[in-house]
């Protein structure tokens, strides 16, 4: 029984499997995530837009899905690859994982040799790919051709596809109301957990679409600026870099993930592509200032180049696995950012104190 559904990689490798999501096809950049838990948070994290995610944990779907665990208003990733897809068994569950994928029209493949796929991606790096889950027959060779046709994510503005044009507002969890400082947050593909974390430490938050200019930010008369996570290459959002350049020094700034890369670019640093990125929940990050270590949640393919850091930027965090830049702080302006995800979801909560640190800037 030759399976007719597959993930084809641009390098010509093809992995077969059984569809377990929406019956459609998708092109995307194939990346792997090594977390044990958190599949719902992963698929609803807008940062995965344009990517087909391979989960290395073999049994997926076990605890189902619930509205509370959604990280955004929809699923933005291209597709999902797993070893086994299971029905839910957990009191919190409101929906089976495969049903969630279908509801949002996301293709997924199970029964795939995910370990071979992960090792392959580790060796050859993230790959342009074509995921074929529809019943419209195409050959694996055609799949590979389509994977090669996919433009990839380099230099592309992916944030425009995920930012919420409607924006949103969050009130501080402590009930401080209008007395609380107001943070303007650029939504490059923001996760709800981040906004929840900001509100939890006592901020009012106004979320602005990615394309909002510096003047729109200033018009809100905010007390601080937050640069969110988001998908793709920071080089694809030059307008955001320009906006941050204007606002740097005028407002305290905190950035996460893509927001961190944008802050770095605004300060004159460079970013580059990692071979296969960091996607998982177990990356040790050392805080060079406090000499502490946190196990962090990570999701990025691009990173700030350590050698390019201008003298205004201080290196505050490094990844203990590979020494890459995980956090920076501006020496004169009130601005800092981290590459990892202190809001977790999915992942450990070790670094949650960073939101409190931002609050203390006020």
């Amino acid at each position, binding site marked *: *029984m030759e399976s007719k559904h597959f993930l084809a990689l641009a390098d010509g490798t093809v992995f077969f499997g059984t569809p377990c999501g929406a019956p459609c096809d998708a092109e995307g950049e194939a990346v*792997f995530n*090594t*977390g*044990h*838990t*958190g599949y*719902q*948070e992963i698929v609803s994290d807008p940062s995965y837009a344009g990517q087909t995610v391979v989960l*290395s*944990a*073999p*049994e997926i779907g*076990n*605890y*189902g899905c*619930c509205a*509370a*665990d959604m990280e955004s208003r929809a699923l933005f990733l291209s597709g999902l690859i797993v*070893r*086994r897809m*299971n*029905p839910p*068994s*957990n*009191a*919190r569950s409101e929906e089976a994982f495969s049903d969630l994928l279908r509801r949002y029209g996301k293709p997924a493949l199970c029964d795939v*040799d*995910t*370990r*071979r796929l*992960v*090792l392959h991606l*580790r060796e050859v790096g993230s790959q342009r790919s074509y995921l074929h889950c529809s019943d419209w027959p195409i050959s694996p060779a055609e799949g590979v051709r389509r994977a090669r046709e996919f433009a990839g994510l380099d230099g592309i503005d992916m944030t425009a596809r995920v930012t919420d044009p409607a924006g949103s507002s969050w009130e501080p969890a402590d009930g401080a109301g209008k007395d609380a400082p107001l943070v303007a947050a650029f939504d490059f593909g923001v996760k709800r957990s981040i906004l929840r974390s900001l509100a939890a430490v006592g901020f009012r938050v106004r979320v602005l679409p990615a394309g909002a200019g510096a003047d729109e930010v200033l018009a809100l008369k905010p007390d601080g600026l937050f640069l969110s996570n988001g998908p793709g290459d920071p080089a694809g959002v030059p307008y955001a870099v320009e906006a941050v350049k204007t606002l740097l020094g005028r407002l305290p700034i905190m950035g996460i993930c893509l927001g961190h890369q944008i802050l770095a670019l605004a300060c004159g640093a460079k970013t580059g592509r990692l071979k296969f990125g960091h996607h*998982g*929940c*177990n*990356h*040790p990050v*050392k805080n060079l200032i406090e*000499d*502490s*270590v946190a*196990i962090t949640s990570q999701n990025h393919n691009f990173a700030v180049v350590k050698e390019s850091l201008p003298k205004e930027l201080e290196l505050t965090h490094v990844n*203990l*696995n590979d020494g890459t830049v995980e956090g920076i702080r501006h020496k004169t302006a009130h601005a800092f950012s981290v590459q990892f995800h202190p809001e*977790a*979801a*999915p*992942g*450990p*909560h*070790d670094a949650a104190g960073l939101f409190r640190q931002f609050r203390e800037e006020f």
Partner: protein
Amino acid sequence: MPARRDIKKIMLIGAGPILIGQGCEFDYSGVQACKALRAEGYEIVLVNSNPATIMTDPEFADRTYIEPMTFEALSEIVRRECPDALLPTLGGQTALNLALRLYDQGVLRRFHVEMIGVGAEAIRRAEDRDKFKETMTSLGIESPRSRSVHSMESGREAAAEIGSWPLILRPGFTLGGSGGGIARNAEEFEAILQRGLDASLNREVLIEESLLGWKEFELEVIRDRRNRAAIVCSIENIDPMGIHTGDSVTVAPAQTLSDAEYQAMRSDSLRVMDAIGVETGGSNVQWAVDPKSGRRVIIEMNPRVSRSSALASKATGFPIAKIAALLAVGYTLDELRNDITRTTPACFEPALDYIVTKVPRFTFEKFPATDSTLGTQMKSVGEAMAIGRTFKESFQKAIRSLDTGHDGFGADAKCDRLKEKSDEEVEGEIRRPNPDRYYYIYEALRRGWPVEKIHALTSIDLYFLRKMAELAASEAEIRPTADSLRAAKEDGFSDRQLSHLLGKSEPEIRALLREMGIAPVYGTVDTCAGEFPAVTPYYYSTYNGEYDEPVRGDDGERKRRIMILGGGPNRIGQGIEFDYCCVHAAFALREAGCEVIMVNCNPETVSTDYDTSDKLYFEPLTFENVFDIYQRERPDGVILQFGGQTPLNLALALCEAGVPILGTKPSDIDAAEDRDLFRALMRRLGIAQPESGIAHNIDEALAAVERIGFPVLVRPSFVLGGRAMVIVYNEKYLRKFFEEAAQVSDGPILIDRFLEHAVEVDVDSVSDGERTVIGAIMEHVELAGIHSGDSACSIPPRTLSPKVLETIRRYTRELAGALHVCGLMNIQFAVQDETVFMIEVNPRASRTVPFVSKSTGVPLAKKAALSMIGRTLAEQGLSGEISIPYVTFKEAVFPFAKFPGTDIALSPEMKSTGEVMSIEFTDDQAYLKSQVAAGSALPRGGGVFVSLRDADKKDALPLVRELEELGFTIYATIGTATALYDSGLRCHAAYKISNGRPNILDFIEEGKIQWIVNTPTPGAASKVDEIRMRTGAVMKGIPVTTTLSALEIAVRGLKSSDEGGAVRSLQEYHQLVRLSEA
């Protein structure tokens, strides 16, 4: 922060003998710690009474004390050694309790010893129920509703206050939940509370609300002095709350928690570690989650490494004990390297791309009188672990790793027997937690019961039940087509299961699969789910996927490659001693330049440490799995004589498949097991054997006994640890035995004349194919008829004449020659009136090899392993038998306290779980010390209760007289008392328990009895009275001497002026051997 240099000498406390709840996992953790700390330049003082451990090998510490694990002995060692620091977190609860006492009694302060890893206050906060709960409450973490009580009265009050049945009772400061239980009503409550108060060192029992049916999770935490902490592994118990985690089937990582739930549990676990104040090292935090509401409560926290940390280490590749030891001397997690990747730091959380399943191994067949229902008190004696890419594959591999005759989850002959059970029976056995429950679940699923019904009966999570249901449903769909077989192999079906389902032989199935191109691939336990390349070759097989790790060492110059088969899960009769031999073989062969491959499935062991061998395959010890590895690695030879019966059972099949077996040929091993062949050999060599017969049915048996005469020793052929072996004195019991034996073994029944009043002797020897050197001759304390594994024994022998010893030596050499032994051999002789009878020969590793090696300083297993690759004993510098200028004793340790209602009388059926060793300069002092070490120290005064069988009364009189002269008050049953009176001995008479009061139970209750001497009345079933008495004694911790020979040597020791208590290190003793040799 580098390691502390203000500390130079560190004392490590081991866990003592193997008990239920404290297995060889602490040898594994201790060995890791010793290796790591010595590599850092620290001087190590090690204390452990268990000679079967690798950690007590003299080369693992600078000073190794094989001394009793008592406060007195440890104080003496501290005084003698004055270490700078004491590391108490690697030797289980035993070490923690001892360390706390040394601290409380001021011993540590007096000798300026710092406790490292964990402080006394933290131990108390974790162990004291009230303090623990208080600390949790201050963190906002919920505990079960509960109260600690110290008396029956306050217990009843607490029960009324909580106000609902059932209630869980947990005694404080015990091992493996000893004495605890679930009380469903007031009557059960009274009994369990009393037992719990007695078992607790501080007479404390926690009474708490029932969490029966809640989901149970464990998180393994590691932390350094800078509060950098990580979760090494999450473990989910498939068996819900109410079944001890040691008795539960568990999986790693946790499977049914969402990220939100898991991360909250993770964060709380780190906060618990911080609040309890565990400065550095590994801890284990247990949680219960209500499956309906998601409400989560903390169960307990162990501020030390545990059985679960050994499991977590093997499951993830993260060596918790090694890292914990290094953290204790000041390193921080980011300074230490992940051994597996060698590029990333130890400060991380392992990511798994496979599923690990652990299953407990039970031995209820050894304790037929005891209830096999599982509860909060641990009853399993070992465990097996399996790795698969999916739950189904992992689960099925785990079940067949148990070596209980099951080839997976159903689809085998053993499960077929359940087809005859009624629905009521099946339902009952599913409702009742018991060792066979999963097989009944299989049967129910096969009958089409919905998973919801089974969930209602068991509270096992639907996730797992659905997987089991899929397995049960899929077996009917399996066809001999490539697609179907591939799917079956992915789901973990073994060749034997497929053979059973498809009606083809196992070799036919194997050939069919290979023809279709279906073969396993091997994955690596790499700590990172493939994110980084792994350096350490730690493998598991899977059919889920095509990626196959390349075989290392095939390119370039190939070393001589030797594969060693381990022993599988620990059980009674096959324990740590065999793992010890496997590990020694690995060490010796690696040193000799070979590449060593280890195959085993026991997560508690040193053999499954990836450091022990060059390559580790964590696989079931079945023909299929072993032969797969053989075909992949193509070793030059395979060693299976060190792992006990489990690998030996594969010998013939492997041999037939063309696998080169090193050492004694399987056909010769078989010749020693085969009655007829062996009898012929004995006749040829002129060695006496007890007359014997063989019977396939009761009529043949009666005919044989006609010839031999009662009493006879009867047993099924091919069993381990004397299973189902009894001494039979009359026809009635012979008939009963036949009924029972038929259930254990299909083979014939062996019948031997039983040699009454014979002295039993064990000999371990090593041969290189030409020469044979005797390791030691051991004389048992108990007379022949008691299983050698349960018997105390000494080196050198105490009562044997030079002529007898010479005969034993000659027989040993002749046998080794006749069986072409290359490697180890163990022989049991019985000596009756200067005649030496051959009882049995096992041309393989034995339980006593570590004891002999520790006694003489000659590592027999290493010598044997090198012999097998062609090095002569002469080349190895072993010229002859070593005589030692001191006396060593081995004494067995029993799990009776865990099996209420079990008779503790010793028999040919082995019942001990572990052993201790003592060393002294006289045999009586060594014997007394061995009793102290075994936890049954003989009193030096007080009341001794004597109850003797008629045959012993005459011989016992002088000994009882001496007891009286030593100042003991003598109590006796009326029969014995009469005999004592008649010879002029004064004593207090007691009624038999069934005849009236006061009886022995009253005396025990009143605290009048400190020692019981009871030689059991012969017969297959001991009298009810005697069983009740001995059981009562075990529960109260009163030593029981069941043989006259033991009484004799004990009396001699008590009469001696030596008060005992001196301690000396093994290195010092071995120095004496070298001096006396020179």
